[in-house]
């Protein structure tokens, strides 16, 4: 089994979805359930982290800008690390990710193993 990073992206400027408490509760449940399913197959390596929207981008010449969402429409909202047989299987798992139901997407990246 190889490890894969799943990166969740979402348009943070998108205000079309106005969540209600109930909606939020369900969203949380959906995430827990999706992650729980991955964990139940012993494929969860790390539940990763959720990222706050605030951030800065540091560029050459000591230029610091607020970002990163100014430049990219889809900001990284979080990531997890999973185990899967193949890139295809990792992508298959991502199809059920709740980020998709709010207009976001999942980027699946294989991790280069450091041990032979």
């Amino acid at each position, binding site marked *: 089994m190889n490890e894969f990073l799943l990166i969740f992206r979402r348009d943070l400027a998108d205000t079309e979805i106005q969540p209600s408490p109930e909606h939020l509760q369900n969203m949380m*449940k959906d995430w*827990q*359930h999706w*992650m*729980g*399913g991955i*964990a*139940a*197959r*012993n494929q*969860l390596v790390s*539940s990763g982290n959720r990222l706050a929207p605030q951030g800065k981008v540091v560029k050459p010449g000591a230029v610091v800008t607020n970002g990163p969402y100014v430049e990219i429409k889809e900001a990284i909202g979080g990531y997890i690390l999973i185990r899967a047989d193949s890139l295809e299987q990792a992508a298959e798992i991502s199809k059920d990710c709740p980020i998709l139901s709010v207009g976001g997407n999942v980027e699946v990246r294989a991790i280069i193993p450091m041990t032979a």
Partner: protein
Amino acid sequence: MELLPHLFRTEYRKIIAVLSRHFGLDQLTLAEDIASETFLTAAETWGLKGLPENPVAWLYTVAKNKARDQIRRQLVFQQKIRAAIASDEKLLPQTDIDLSDENIQDSQLQMMFAIADPILAVESQIALMLRILCGFGIEEIADAFLTSRETIHKRLTRAKEKIRAARIKINFPTGEQIGQRSEAVLLCLYLLFNEGYYSSARNTVLRKDFCMEAMRLTLILIENEKTNSSRAEALFALMCFHASRFDARTDEQGEIVRYDDQDVSLWNEELILKGHYYLNLASRGNELSRYHLEAAIAYWHTVKNDPVEKWDNILQLYNQLLCMEYSSVRALNRTYAIAKTAGKPIAIQEAEKLGLDENHLYHVLLGYLYTDINSSKAIEHLYKAQSLAKTDRERILIGRDLDKIRRAVGGEI
């Protein structure tokens, strides 16, 4: 005489804890010898002369005298052999053995932390706890672990050798040690409880004793403000909730009764309430440990009549618990909760993704899920479960499930 076995249960471990603390943990065998001799003397003397007025005080006095003799002997040895060595406080041990309640409690607490030393394997820690903190006999421990006397004897002897070699000390744990060691202590108590609760041994009385002992030791931890923690409180709540079903989960023959088939009137309300109390205490801070999650799951299992939110909550808690750490039992229990919330067909889909084909409980679960949906599949899985089961007790339980399905389909299969 019923009194002596009872006193052996309650007092043997206290004497050992106090003596080990007094002599040092490397002298564990000596402490055990003195405690054993004390009880042998009691059996002889009381058999001949009848019961003393205060049997417990009598035992303590005899133990103290035997210990004092031992100390004198050591002293003579040290004075003769080590006369040349400059005075060292350790060479002049106190001769007074303190068997007050407070010292007993302290000694047992310190012993718990000493036993949880990472140098010892977890199974050795549990065996030592059972032997010297709970006073169970080697035979009883072997019974519960479904293994031989020799295995347990060896395990204990090796553990004691390690303790001696590593010079593990019984001290009051410092703040730092409490932090480092308490996770191991809690795990040991958790496993000790599980040993009683989930053991395949048929001896129900003994298994219940294990659970009660684990609860007693956890309470000692909670009652001392230095060693108490919200995790310890959550663990205790978990134990209370589980223990509340102890009488309901075995039948008269000592066979396991599945959760769905239990007589809820046998659930112990008092223990459930106690569990509420400690789970509330455990929930004061922000900490959310595995014990908190497991206690919350156990709480929902004490809720009768399956209200809608019950299995939904259990499912969410299992999701969180699995994200914290994987275990096959958790994965299977999560799937059971899915069956209760989303129905058996969806649960079957989830179950078949688990990849636990060699696990007998996986096939028991699928047997349950396919019941009323596809009887021949259900039977197929239960047969597989029976062939993978490790104990007769489990095979009997699975056999009962098989009979039930066969009866339901009217002997067609």
